């Protein structure tokens, strides 16, 4: 089941890589920051999933809206001559790191609990 999203990721990558012409260099920064925002939504979703409060509406909306907002913020920063780009990178970077750490902690805890209960660790 998990293979379907993974396949989608690869297919999306290949389709765009082959079909879409490269974006102008000044857009590259915005695309990069949108990717960071998407990654943040992804990691956040993983954490929520483990904490059993995952909601697909929040995930989907968070993914797309954060992506757009991050790119927009960077764009406005460029227009104002302020490196808001950096602020976005730092903020998102810290969040991704926090969420990754939290996810790891949850996974380890779950594994330890499973072992203590005398059951083999299962991954849902």
């Amino acid at each position: 089941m998990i293979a379907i999203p993974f396949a989608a990721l690869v297919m999306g990558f290949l389709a765009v890589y082959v079909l879409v012409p490269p974006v102008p260099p000044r857009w590259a920064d915005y695309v990069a920051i949108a990717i960071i925002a998407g990654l943040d939504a992804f990691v956040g979703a993983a954490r929520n999933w483990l904490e059993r409060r995952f909601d697909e509406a929040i995930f989907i909306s968070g993914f797309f809206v954060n992506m757009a907002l991050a790119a927009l913020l960077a764009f406005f920063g460029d227009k104002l001559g302020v490196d808001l780009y950096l602020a976005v990178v730092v903020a998102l970077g810290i969040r991704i790191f926090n969420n990754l750490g939290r996810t790891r902690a949850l996974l380890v805890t779950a594994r330890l609990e499973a072992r203590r209960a005398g059951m083999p660790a299962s991954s849902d």
Partner: protein
Amino acid sequence: MKSGARHWLLPLTAVCIVLGGMLGIQVRSQKERGEMQVGRQTSALVGMLTRTEAQLEQQREETGRLRALLAQYEEEAASERGLVRVMREELQASRIALGAVAVRGPGIELELADSTRRSIGGIGAEDLYVIHDADLLQVANELWAAGAEAVALNGQRLVTGSSIACSARLIEVNGVAIASPFLFQAIGDKDKLVSALNIRGGVLDGLRLLEFPVKLTTNDEITIPPLSVTPKHIYAQPVERESKQ
């Protein structure tokens, strides 16, 4: 969790497609950027190569010329009189370039004077209607650029090392003070000289705009005097070249 799979599978797939696509864009354009830089470096290298080849070609020509000259010397060496003639010719060419002899030939005469227009007032405003050393330098430069072979300003021969400098209200050429009106004489291709001076937006264009009297005439017989004082070389010494080959 199998029953609840549907509610995350679809959004996750959609998100993955988008994320994959964006990664695709980014990787693709980063790659393009790198290739562009390589292209730029390549074109710079090609430019260097072309320049070097041009220099090489020039030096080859120079070598050929010198070899021919050497052959000529050797040939003329047989008869002493021939050698003397060749050397005299070369000496003559050097003398013309140095301004050591008067020269004659077709060319142009250019007369410039301070503007008839007077400034309405204001300190320093009248400077606008006076010929400056920079104007004369610009004219001289324009003449050389148009291939003038000999140039004189108010009877002062302009050669390498000649200066046109401002000193108080006068202008010094080769250390001799001159004043308006200024007369340039130049020997060379008349048409070329005239069109170079009259070029749109050039020095004469600017002077005419401010109502400076400018008189440009061509002449088939212009005589340009030699340099009044031959420059002395106190510090510069020729380098003896050992010609062992």
